[in-house]
């Protein structure tokens, strides 16, 4: 709060300290939306420039980190909204790595081999499947299912009501599951593979 007050009074070094201290958090939020470093940096810079001009509206009721997280989320959502949504992913669109990863997972031997490379392939696949969802739904699902955030935490980070978060997450989860089912079906997977 002291830093925020100093920055509100026009102390540039205080604002520089805010940027240094909270940029990992802002980058983490922006990374949910973008994979390219240049886009993440662009978004993060935009967040801090907005924060500087809106410092007067920060009353110190919540944490500065929470306030910045909300600005970051809304800024990234606006950036994503302006970009085109991709069409639904089909099996023919899958890369060899992605198809190999799916086969490995379906055969039940993938969970033990969670290499960095495999994780990146899985992350790429997630990006491609999530691209068909509205950015708000992606955000809700990534936070809840990916980062184990609670409904309340998502509501605080986005400014949405808790019921809105629940609806978005439900809708996104359903759509993602159905898209995954389609991929698995079209791949002609064996039906024997069942959960334990």
């Amino acid at each position: 709060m002291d830093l925020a007050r100093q920055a509100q009074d026009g102390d540039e070094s205080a604002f520089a300290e805010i940027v240094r201290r909270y940029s990992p958090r802002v980058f983490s939020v922006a990374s949910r939306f973008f994979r390219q470093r240049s886009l993440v940096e662009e978004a993060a810079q935009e967040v801090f420039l907005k924060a500087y001009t809106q410092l007067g509206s920060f009353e110190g009721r919540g944490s500065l980190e929470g306030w910045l997280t909300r600005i970051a989320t809304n800024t990234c959502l606006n950036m994503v909204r302006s970009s085109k949504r991709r069409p639904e992913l089909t099996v023919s669109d899958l890369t060899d790595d992605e198809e190999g990863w799916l086969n490995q997972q379906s055969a039940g031997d993938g969970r033990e081999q969670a290499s960095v490379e495999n994780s990146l392939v899985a992350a790429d696949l997630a990006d491609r499947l999530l691209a068909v969802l509205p950015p708000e739904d992606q955000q809700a699902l990534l936070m809840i299912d990916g980062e184990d955030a609670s409904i309340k935490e998502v509501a605080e980070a986005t400014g949405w009501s808790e019921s809105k978060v629940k609806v978005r997450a439900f809708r996104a989860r359903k759509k993602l599951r159905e898209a995954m089912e389609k991929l698995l079906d079209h791949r002609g997977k064996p039906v024997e593979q069942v959960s334990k």
Partner: protein
Amino acid sequence: MKEKHITEILDNAAIASLSEVELNEIRVHTKDCVSCRDAFEAAQLAAVILKSRAQVTIEPTPFFQTRVMAALREQQAVESVPAMWRLWKSAKVLVSSMAVTTAALAALSFVLPATSTPVDQPVSAYSAESVIIGQGSDELTYEQVLSTIYADDDEAGK
């Protein structure tokens, strides 16, 4: 009906947060229901890819702070120009009227007296009498007065 119920459980919450009772219900149901079995597998894979995606985080570079502060100064410089423009817009009526008033005063002070002075007024327009009794003496120069007086003398001598 049963099938719908299972998919609702899958879509209602993250798989990692399902209770043991819910998981057991899914296990029992998927033994006989192929479509729900597929749905459960898809949901599990979806959960795995979401976890992997969430782990991908880009860290800020050491130069990021410098970059932001430079962008901030640049933004402030750009914003200062419109501020000057706004100031000019609000004050331009006052400044313009002051300039017009100053110009009018200057014209009255320097231009009008010069044009009203009869620099090359004909000497014959004045008579010696009018000069002697002081009529229009304010408008005549010393040379004009002298030339008027001597012109009358010359005529009298003839």
